[in-house]
């Protein structure tokens, strides 16, 4: 095959035409995917940006209102509650999932009997139906008869948290569930990263007398940096966009204690029919995620320059 390409063809078409053909072939390869992306993601996204500056109930003609939606946002207490909850969720979900996934990957990156089984088991939550996950964890967290609190009571905790039935513990309950669900997926990414680290590094370090902690600190972590960076970026985006698990587990409650931005976007848009205001919130969410991601990329670049 390689031979065919390197061999000059008997009649070489003009260079320009050949270049065009390459572009067209390239485009046609990404066309099916790009078409779907453009139709279902790009166009709606751009439309949502425009909608943020109008008042529209999806039925009447949109009315241009300039920055009204954003002014309203600044006065809307519920928006700030949702923003705070989203940050709370991200602050819990990102580090915990990262730690759990890395820990699992390290534990399962060795020659153990049945390691395949454990890897599959760890990945299982990720491919389980989210509704089932939420319902089962809700039962586990049942404040009066749930196994979690029964275990806590057996361990001597007299007044165990009321989890989803209390404003203070509902978010931790959601975070625990989401960490459990997501860690398997990121574990697979970390496992791939770990296996790409040349064994020689560890062997050399061992010969030099480095202990396990030193090897982890000085070899494993630095070598994993591209993977870690990717995982952190994905986790951040995922955390800020969280919706599904919360809708099924707590539906934002009790009160507004687990209401997040994505849910507010849905509620204002689909339920209340205020598509302009909903798009304004979505735009703010987009800007937040974009900023955080750009900052992460910058930090990563600076560190790789060193």
């Amino acid at each position, binding site marked *: 095959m390689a031979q065919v390409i390197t061999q000059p063809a008997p009649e070489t078409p003009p260079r320009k035409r050949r270049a065009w053909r390459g572009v067209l072939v390239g485009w046609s390869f990404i066309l*099916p995917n790009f*078409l779907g992306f453009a139709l279902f993601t790009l166009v709606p996204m751009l439309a949502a940006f425009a909608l943020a500056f109008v008042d529209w109930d*999806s*039925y009447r003609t949109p009315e241009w209102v300039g920055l009204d939606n954003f002014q309203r946002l600044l006065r809307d207490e519920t928006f700030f509650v949702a923003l705070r909850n989203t940050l709370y969720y991200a602050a819990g979900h990102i580090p915990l999932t990262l730690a759990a996934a890395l820990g699992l990957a390290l534990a399962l990156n060795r020659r153990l009997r049945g390691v395949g089984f454990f890897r599959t088991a760890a990945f299982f939550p990720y491919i389980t139906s989210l509704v089932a996950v939420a319902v089962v964890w*809700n039962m586990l967290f049942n*404040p009066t008869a749930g196994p979690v609190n029964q275990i806590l009571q057996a361990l001597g905790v007299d007044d165990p948290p009321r989890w989803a*039935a*209390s404003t203070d513990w509902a978010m931790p309950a959601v975070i625990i569930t989401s960490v459990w669900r997501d860690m398997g997926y990121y574990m697979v990414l970390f496992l791939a990263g770990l296996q790409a680290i040349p064994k020689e590094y560890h062997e050399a370090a061992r010969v030099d007398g480095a202990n396990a902690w030193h090897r982890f600190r000085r070899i494993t972590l630095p070598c994993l940096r591209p993977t870690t960076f990717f995982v952190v970026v994905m986790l951040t985006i995922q955390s800020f966009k969280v919706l599904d698990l919360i809708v099924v587990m707590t539906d934002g409650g*009790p009160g507004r204690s687990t209401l997040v931005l994505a849910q507010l976007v849905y509620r204002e848009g689909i339920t209340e029919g205020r*598509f302009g205001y909903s798009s304004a919130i979505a735009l703010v969410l987009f800007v937040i995620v974009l900023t955080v991601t750009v900052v992460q990329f910058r930090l990563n670049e600076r560190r790789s320059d060193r």
Partner: protein
Amino acid sequence: MIASKAGKRRRFVRCTGVAAALALAVTACGGGGGSGEQASGGKTTLTVTVWNLAKTPEFTALFDAFQRANPDITIKPVDILADDYPEKVTTMLAGGDRTDVITMKNVTDYSRYSSRGQLVDITDLATSADGAKLAGLPAFNVQGKYYALPYRQDFWLLYYNKKYFEQAGVKMTDHLTWDEYAKLARTLTKEKGGKKVYGAYHHTWRSVVQAIAAAQTGGDQLGGDYSFFRDQYQLALGLQKDGATLDFGTAKAQKSDYKTMFESGATAMLPMGTWYIAGILSAKEKGATDVDWALAPMPQRPGATGATTFGSPTAFAVNRRTEHADAAKKFVRFAAGPAGAEAIGKVGVVPALQSPEITKAYFSLKGMPADEISKKAFQPGKVVLEMPVSEHTSDIDTILNEEHELIMVGDKSIDEGIGSMGDRVKSEVLD
């Protein structure tokens, strides 16, 4: 070599063809959806949104009766999961769906759709001689215009387990006060072979506390002052604290089902809407439960005269984007009329059109309790609309629901909760 290259190119062309066809198929799916179509032979097909078709016998009863009376029209139900119904219909209408008849599951959603201009004005049907007699019709009055016609009128009453009452040696009366209700609930609470039987089950909906308080005190749920909820919250929290009702947090966590609570004998009393009568009748007929049940009027405040309860009508409306407006209006009128009332009454559903004959036919249904208290429960003195309709209804509903949860899980005291309901409704909605 050359041949294999050509083969590859051919395969590539075929692949792009398939991909393009797929893309077209996907976009085609996005474009259509739910419109009524003209079937062959001049027959009109009407599409109607319904929820849980298999478990809601009234729809089938109604459609069958309508099709018998109008052989030129076929009804095609659009079945939607009951829990998702409001969101799904909202999304459908927002997306320009052409389903002909939209069932209004509650008045709050009706107020949204009508204020957005998504429904056909059918004031002519509502103000006709037949229409004006319908119970619950005033709820659909939007500045003198009507966009839906109720076909059933549900109201709340008290279901109770006769066996537990006999075992405890207590008697149900037809004029219970809330204090007597609370006392009964505490008496009836017991452990039975390791299984707990609650004296009462209060479902997690805010109406169980708030709508009954509003109906019986005359309080306005859209007003911004909610001190009239206080007594009812004290009662509900008191019973919860004494273990006479299932704890709110647990009920939420388990997504507990009032039907299961009552039919499995986990509760002795259950304040609930009349729609559940059809549910028990069919569960008993299938042999799914052997609960020995009867009805009583809702408990009342001390010194109240007559029985006041709350309720809400269910209605049919015509989609503004329908292509069969005449057939759709015909169906709406039929459902609300005598023939529709007869059809749904037979399956245990309370029709909006009420007359002594219809009530009599209703109580002669197989499995209906025939005692005097049950019959009295069926004729409440006054039925107040569950939630008044205005442009603010849905926003206020969200706030009242959030604060209800906080009071019921004990995160806020009754006074704090009632205070923040008022503050939030005033600052976030009414201003």
